[in-house]
């Protein structure tokens, strides 16, 4: 196992020889792909040409001499032919070099002729799986499979696959995306070629062609340009000068035609379905069925089937053109984060933000109820704006309204096209108050509730200034409350997932508790404070109110002044092992004086199946909590002492010689060199985060190589290393000489025989993660202090360990995005701020 030669493959499988060939079978899209793609280019050119010629006719009038049709056609035919040929060749090359694998293990697509790119997506991160069938592809029974992950990622497009193959893959990917167990070859229900619906799809709302056409003809956006066109035609005809009007009319007609294509042809057969699938292709009993979210299928010529990721919906707009009112019809649009990225909004072949093109009230209620459950929009009390707004909005001041309830804010405006915008509080991005000079004269102001890009635009217009101010301020409070509620829901959900046996991390990363998680305290407890926990606590003469703190693994309760009860959350066999290893480690330190209180386990036992220990209680206060309320001078005294304390930890005797892991599943284990130990520590976390890291940091392999090259240069004799020297594991006492660190606790699987500088570096690095305001500045200052003490060399090693911890905690991506973002920053930092500021 060599560290210097560490290629990115090593992250996953250190045993494999770098550059070993992949044996996995990859496949290409359907061989007809290049033909269809060149055909689509041909059609696009044709349409563009027709538009151009029509516009030309508009400008020049209908004089055939002007057109020079013969020369035009031959020249254009040559250009178009060349373009189609080039598109065909390009299509062939890109088809030839596109390969993909979708199996039980991975989803990977490889493209590129000169610059090969290999995109790998984790199944869990898939947000939507769309099938798009342009007319040309449809004729040959082919379809494009489009996969979207995060909001910032480009989508993966697989063009083109056989329709049944695409449907089967969609089936499989959706099942995997929802965390179900599935296999690619599972039986599936064939989807109809006409509507792309399977027998298991339950249509929630289906828009009939009659209603679609009727709604379209009565819609404001169709009627207004259509009426203008008719009026122009009639007046010019009456005056006998139709030829002059052609110039103005043609663009109008082209616009109308594109409207027809978008709103009618693109929306034809619009169906919102709830996809519900059982374990094996829908044939299993109903109790095993699971919803896979909403799906929209639509289109007459191009058939599009797209999933609606409900959790990514940022807002809803319900509008009603004037003439729809007697019919009780509405149109519903949604903001979906990441979707509006496609510039051609509502294009037939792209994802759309339309949730319902035309629907009656009950259907709107049904669909909106699915995307904003329990929002009770009718229950929102709406406020009107002052009558003086009529001076600015003489045409619709009576329609301006705004209101909110505990879930969402709603604004209303317009009568020609009555529009309601709804934004859930949790999705509020920012709040703006805006006032123009006329508004100032009238004491009015507007409040904008900003949301992600899309059709929804919630603006409370022309409020009384006082009401505007109040609305903005209270909206910020509501948004904050909703965000916190969202976060705790997420934490509870993740805690539940974490509580499942087997859902735990594997290998050396077992028991990795990110420093940030400790600061969270007992808020997202894995084990709910149930009756038996309460009884257990009562048996030891303590209760929930005496909770001192807790991390991912355990909670600590005060028993009396000298003892605490540490209650482990999960009944894990290797937790027993860890606890016993820690106990003997601590026992070996009895009588060792390094000027710090050290942890001591008095008793290990289990009751009601729960593992607990009784430990010595540290005399000081938790440093992390104390830092939050301390003033700057006190903090720096304490942090100086903290740095000294981490430096003294190396004096602790270790039960083993050489470089070794001391605690955890893999311990005790000795390593031949420092490099091997470091590699072993990183192997577990990076095995999980590799795909994600490769995705987020294209040059991760270089960073990995550089880290190993740096570590290989480290000449050091082994000493005990805490491994997680963060403030939440240190205890501070307020002595007469100022706040001093008097204890260090919570040794863990991070504890190793390694480079003693690691704890000094950890003290500097982890301080940044503390939630108090000046944490980053303090960390930089502490780095400076370390440099003063131990010379400039230390800042180099702090920078190296920054990258080490960046990898070490990188598996935080699925439970702590903030920590993961921090990791990415550590990995990309060339000159960490702590050093450059010195």
């Amino acid at each position: 196992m060599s560290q210097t030669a560490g290629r990115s493959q090593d992250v996953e499988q250190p045993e494999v020889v770098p550059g070993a060939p992949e044996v996995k079978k990859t496949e290409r899209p359907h061989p007809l792909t290049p033909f269809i793609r060149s055909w689509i280019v041909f059609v696009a050119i044709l349409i563009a040409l027709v538009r151009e010629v029509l516009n030309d006719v508009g400008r020049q009038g209908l004089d055939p001499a002007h057109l020079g049709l013969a020369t035009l056609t031959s020249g254009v035919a040559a250009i178009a032919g060349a373009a189609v040929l080039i598109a065909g060749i390009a299509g062939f090359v890109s088809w030839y070099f596109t390969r993909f694998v979708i199996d039980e293990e991975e989803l990977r697509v490889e493209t590129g002729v000169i610059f090969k790119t290999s995109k790998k997506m984790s199944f869990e991160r898939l947000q939507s799986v769309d099938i798009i069938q342009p007319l040309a592809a449809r004729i040959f029974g082919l379809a494009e499979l489009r996969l979207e992950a995060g909001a910032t990622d480009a989508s993966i497009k697989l063009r083109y696959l056989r329709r049944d193959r695409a449907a089967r893959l969609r089936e499989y990917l959706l099942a995997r995306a929802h965390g179900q167990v599935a296999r690619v070859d599972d039986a599936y229900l064939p989807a109809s070629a006409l509507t792309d619906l399977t027998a298991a799809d339950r249509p929630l709302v289906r828009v009939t062609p009659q209603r679609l056409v009727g709604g379209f003809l009565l819609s404001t956006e169709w009627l207004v340009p259509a009426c203008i066109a008719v009026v122009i035609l009639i007046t010019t005809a009456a005056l006998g000068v139709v030829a002059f009007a052609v110039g103005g009319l043609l663009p109008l007609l082209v616009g109308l035609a594109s409207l027809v294509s978008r709103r009618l042809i693109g929306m034809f057969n619009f169906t919102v379905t709830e996809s519900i699938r059982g374990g094996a292709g829908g044939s299993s009993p109903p109790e095993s069925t699971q919803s896979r979210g909403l799906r929209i299928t639509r289109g007459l010529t191009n058939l599009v089937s797209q999933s609606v990721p409900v959790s990514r919906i940022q807002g809803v707009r319900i509008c009603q053109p004037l003439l729809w009112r007697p019919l009780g019809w509405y149109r519903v649009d949604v903001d979906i984060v990441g979707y509006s990225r496609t510039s051609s909004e509502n294009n037939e072949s792209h994802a759309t933000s339309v949730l319902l093109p035309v629907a009656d009230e009950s259907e709107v209620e049904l669909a909106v109820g699915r995307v904003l459950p329990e929002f009770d929009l009718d229950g929102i009390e709406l406020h009107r704006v002052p009558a003086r707004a009529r001076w600015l909005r003489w045409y619709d001041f009576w329609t301006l309204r705004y209101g909110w309830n505990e879930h969402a804010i709603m604004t209303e405006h317009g009568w020609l096209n009555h529009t309601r915008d709804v934004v859930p509080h949790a999705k509020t991005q920012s709040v703006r108050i805006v006032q123009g000079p006329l508004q100032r004269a009238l004491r009015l102001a507007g409040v904008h509730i900003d949301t992600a890009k899309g059709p929804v635009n919630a603006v409370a217009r022309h409020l009384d200034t006082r009401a505007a101010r109040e609305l903005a301020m209270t909206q910020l409070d509501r948004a904050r409350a909703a965000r916190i509620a969202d976060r705790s829901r997420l934490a509870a959900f993740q805690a539940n997932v974490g509580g499942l046996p087997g859902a735990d991390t594997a290998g050396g990363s077992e028991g990795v508790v990110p420093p940030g998680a400790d600061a969270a305290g007992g808020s997202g407890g894995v084990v709910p404070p149930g009756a038996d926990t309460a009884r257990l606590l009562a048996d030891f003469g303590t209760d929930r109110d005496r909770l001192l703190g807790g991390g991912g693994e355990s909670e600590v309760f005060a028993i009396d002044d000298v003892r605490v009860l540490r209650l482990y959350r999960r009944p894990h066999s290797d937790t027993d092992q860890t606890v016993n290893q820690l106990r003997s480690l601590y026992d070996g330190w009895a009588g060792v004086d390094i000027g710090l209180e050290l942890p001591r386990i008095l008793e290990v036992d289990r009751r009601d199946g729960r593992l607990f220990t009784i430990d010595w209680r540290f005399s000081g206060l938790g440093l992390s909590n104390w830092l939050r309320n301390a003033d700057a001078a006190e903090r720096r005294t304490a942090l100086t002492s903290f740095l000294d304390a981490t430096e003294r930890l190396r004096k602790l005797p270790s039960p083993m010689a050489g470089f070794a892991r001391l605690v955890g599943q893999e311990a005790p284990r000795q390593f031949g060199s420092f490099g091997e130990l470091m590699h072993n520590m990183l192997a577990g976390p990076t095995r999980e985060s590799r795909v994600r890291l490769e995705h987020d940091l294209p040059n991760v392999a270089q960073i990995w190589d550089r880290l190993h090259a740096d570590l290989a240069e480290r000449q050091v004799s082994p000493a005990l290393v805490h491994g997680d020297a963060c403030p939440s594991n240190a205890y501070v006492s307020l002595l007469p000489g100022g706040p001093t660190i008097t204890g260090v606790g919570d040794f863990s699987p991070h504890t190793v025989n390694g480079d003693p500088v690691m704890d000094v570096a950890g003290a500097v690095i982890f301080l940044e993660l503390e939630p108090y305001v000046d944490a980053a500045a303090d960390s930089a200052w502490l780095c400076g202090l370390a440099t003063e003490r131990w010379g400039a060399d230390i800042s180099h090693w702090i920078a190296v360990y920054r990258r080490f911890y960046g990898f070490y905690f990188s598996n935080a991506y699925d439970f702590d995005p903030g920590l993961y973002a921090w990791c990415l920053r550590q990995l990309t930092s060339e000159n960490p701020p702590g050093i450059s500021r010195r």
Partner: protein
Amino acid sequence: MDELFAPPAYEWQRISPAYRSLRRLTTLVFPPLLFSVPAVAVGVLTGLWWISAVLWGIAAVVMIIRLVLINRSWRSWGYVEREDDLYITHGVLFRSLVAVPYGRMQLVEVESGPLERAFGLATVSLKTASPETGATIPGLPPAEAARLRDRLTALGEAQASGL
């Protein structure tokens, strides 16, 4: 500044006075430049120098209006870091107050063009998922801009929430 745009329970942090000098310079340089090109072109090509005179007149008016407003525009900028959000206000004729929760910030950028650098200034802009947020603070001393960026990033991470 009236109650509508007052900061909640805090005082506005003001931007650097050097921002005024920067604005004065750009006002003195760019409108004359912008109008002179067509003015000279028209004059040389057609000989109708009175059109050029009108253009220069317009340039002068634009310059004077802007020069008069610079001081007020500078004074209108302000920002406040609160516990959970950042407030920014600006605008003389069209006033605005934007409040961005730290948890919503996706990106904090510090920019400093060559002119800004010459005046010792930098611009901090915050990006959220919404393109309309438009939260930008110009005319900050580089040290303050860096401090603000570091603080906002730290707070943004501490309070980050999914979309």
